[in-house]
């Protein structure tokens, strides 16, 4: 006879719900929890050692629930295992200092990276692993399913349906993993609608998956992460953007792509309707994007370059513009953006032919990392965007051309015809304060030793990088036939850094002859013509104007 209980999750869930009901009494009406009862709810439903997802995204933050979690009694709630993609609020780490949580699995810690490193070295917190977004979401459905999910939405109705607004982000992935594995879903919302006199604009998360809803006293915090003021783009960035467009996008006919965050790629976006147009590339490149709604892309959209954009999350100030350009963006029946980080990451990985982004350090093998000493920050989505999709099977001209170049000098299994994703690292040879972007040894190795990691935190492996673009030129690593050539090719675009000055000039000249290295003049680009006048918008005000007044930048970007 089988005496095992096969339904402990459902029973545990029922017990948690019953405890909540008893603890809250009249402060719980159907799914609606009174704001002042939130700490009591958390103490009732969270058990010691639970895996808890406290929704932290790139944009929206479940900040009210984060503060509430900090107020629980550590005698009752402790030893939590936090599983969340982004650590951006101080509370995300306060819970470890307070002894409420002890273990962490995450993707990106951005502004909290330095503090996270300190907590790890002080033994206050144990890191399970640092993941990519897609990788962490995948584990939500395997061995890291949350027992309790604390999520953020814009509004809820009386049934508990959630409207996330444009920043849907991680919410569907988190809630699905939790709701279908016997977990509890608690949502903070900015607004409550009764379903009769007022209704939700659309449903992003069905009520059936949500257990509790609380109205937060203040709207959830949203970070404008992808806004870059064109006024800060330099001539060197314009030059590099010209090289990217002519030397890579046009060369491969890149139709589907993802841009990383930063001024380098913002410069490319702002050059499409000017320099790109002058090269006759409209309609031939950059038609489909996996991208947050970058304000810098407005001029290209307005000039008719862009057919579609699917977004990981939204961007503050872009709401009305997106609504008015619903042919381009994914929008709900209500007209506002529907973002979804999991699907957009999948789109960037499998359906884009090119990823281009900046980095902090590149070594002689082409390994690239933004990890710096004293910080444990993770890489978010970059490792998925910036990696060849080994499972991809559909062909496109750009993918096939890169694949042919990569396999021409191989033999055996490695010569089997297949395509390859274009992965471009775009860096000035020196960053601010003359920090060299090219190094013999990545800081990642020292960080690995300091933090006791299994592997050095490398953002994009040299094996996946196909091109490195600096102000000195473009190197096509696919055409390198051996490690020596690869090293010299990288030195050959490393400018006046120590790595660049130590080049074998004869070999670099030969690589240039073969087209492995291309200088601006080899591409027919005169660096003296790389001026800010080429930018389709040179200020935030220009972006607003280009949008026909629909883009409404956050206050800190309004300088006029």
């Amino acid at each position, binding site marked *: 006879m089988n005496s095992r209980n096969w339904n402990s999750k459902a029973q545990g869930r029922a017990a948690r719900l019953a405890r909540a009901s008893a603890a809250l009494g009249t402060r719980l009406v159907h799914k609606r929890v009174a704001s002042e009862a939130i700490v009591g709810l958390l103490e009732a439903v969270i058990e010691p050692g639970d895996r808890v997802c406290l929704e932290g995204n790139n944009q929206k933050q479940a900040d009210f629930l984060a503060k509430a979690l900090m107020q629980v009694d550590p005698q009752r709630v402790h030893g939590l295992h936090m599983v969340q993609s982004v650590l951006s609020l101080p509370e995300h780490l306060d819970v470890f200092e307070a002894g409420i949580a002890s273990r962490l699995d995450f993707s990106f810690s951005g502004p909290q990276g330095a503090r996270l490193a300190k907590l790890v070295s002080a033994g206050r917190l144990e890191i399970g692993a640092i993941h990519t977004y897609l990788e962490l979401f995948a584990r939500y459905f395997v061995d890291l399913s949350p027992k309790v999910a604390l999520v953020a939405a814009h509004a809820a109705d009386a049934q508990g349906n959630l409207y996330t607004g444009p920043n849907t982000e991680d919410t569907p992935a988190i809630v699905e993993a939790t709701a279908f594995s016997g977990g509890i879903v608690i949502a903070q919302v900015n607004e409550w609608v009764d379903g009769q006199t007022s209704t939700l604009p659309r449903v992003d998360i069905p009520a059936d998956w949500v257990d509790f809803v609380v109205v937060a006293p203040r709207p959830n915090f949203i970070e404008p992460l992808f806004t870059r003021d064109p006024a800060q783009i330099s001539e060197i960035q314009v030059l590099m953007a010209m090289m990217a467009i002519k030397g890579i996008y046009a060369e491969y006919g890149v139709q589907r792509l993802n841009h990383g965050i930063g001024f380098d790629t913002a410069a490319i976006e702002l050059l499409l309707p000017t320099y790109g147009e002058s090269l006759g590339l409209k309609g031939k490149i950059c038609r489909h994007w996996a991208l947050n709604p970058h304000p810098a892309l407005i001029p290209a959209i307005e000039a008719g370059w862009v057919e579609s954009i699917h977004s990981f999350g939204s961007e503050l100030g872009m709401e009305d513009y997106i609504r008015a350009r619903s042919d381009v963006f994914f929008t709900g029946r209500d007209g506002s953006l529907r973002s979804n980080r999991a699907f957009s990451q999948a789109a960037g990985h499998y359906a884009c032919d090119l990823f281009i982004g900046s980095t902090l350090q590149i070594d002689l093998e082409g390994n690239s990392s933004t990890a710096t000493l004293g910080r444990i920050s993770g890489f978010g989505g970059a490792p998925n965007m910036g990696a060849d999709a080994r499972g991809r099977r559909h062909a496109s001209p750009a993918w096939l051309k890169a694949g042919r170049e990569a396999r021409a000098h191989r033999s055996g299994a490695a010569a089997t015809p297949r395509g390859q994703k274009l992965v471009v690292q775009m860096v000035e040879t020196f960053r601010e304060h*003359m920090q060299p972007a090219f190094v013999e040894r990545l800081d990642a190795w020292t960080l690995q030793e300091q933090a006791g990691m299994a592997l050095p935190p490398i953002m994009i492996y040299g094996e996946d990088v196909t091109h490195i673009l600096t102000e000195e030129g473009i190197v096509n690593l696919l055409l390198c036939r051996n490690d020596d050539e690869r090293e010299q090719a990288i030195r050959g675009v490393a400018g006046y850094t120590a790595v660049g000055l130590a080049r074998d000039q004869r070999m670099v000249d030969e690589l240039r002859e073969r087209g492995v290295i291309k200088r601006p003049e080899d591409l027919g680009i005169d660096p003296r013509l790389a001026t800010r006048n080429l930018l389709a918008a040179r200020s935030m005000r220009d972006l607003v104007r280009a949008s026909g007044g629909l883009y409404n930048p956050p206050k800190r970007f309004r300088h006029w």
Partner: protein
Amino acid sequence: MKQIPAGLEALDYRFAGKTQLGAFAPVLVGVVGSGNLEVLLEPAAGHHCEIHIETSARGFGAIWQAVASDFHRRHDLAGVRVSINDMGATPAVVSLRLDQAVSELLP
């Protein structure tokens, strides 16, 4: 020699050149601002390209030497004095400004 303000580093390079410049009106490009520089070209007697640098970023002599040598290799100028006022510009910006200045000279 004029006095070098405290905190600045002065560097001088001198190359024998072949492209002799006659008389020309001085050329000034760039601005003295953070991460930027000012380049002044003036006629000078003789067959040399003299480069005088005052920079707020100390300790990068080897890089300046390489940037100056590459500039001379590209243009091979003679009879010119190049004065640079640098506020921590990267070598890429320095080379760009130098080339911009020369292009004003030789349209």
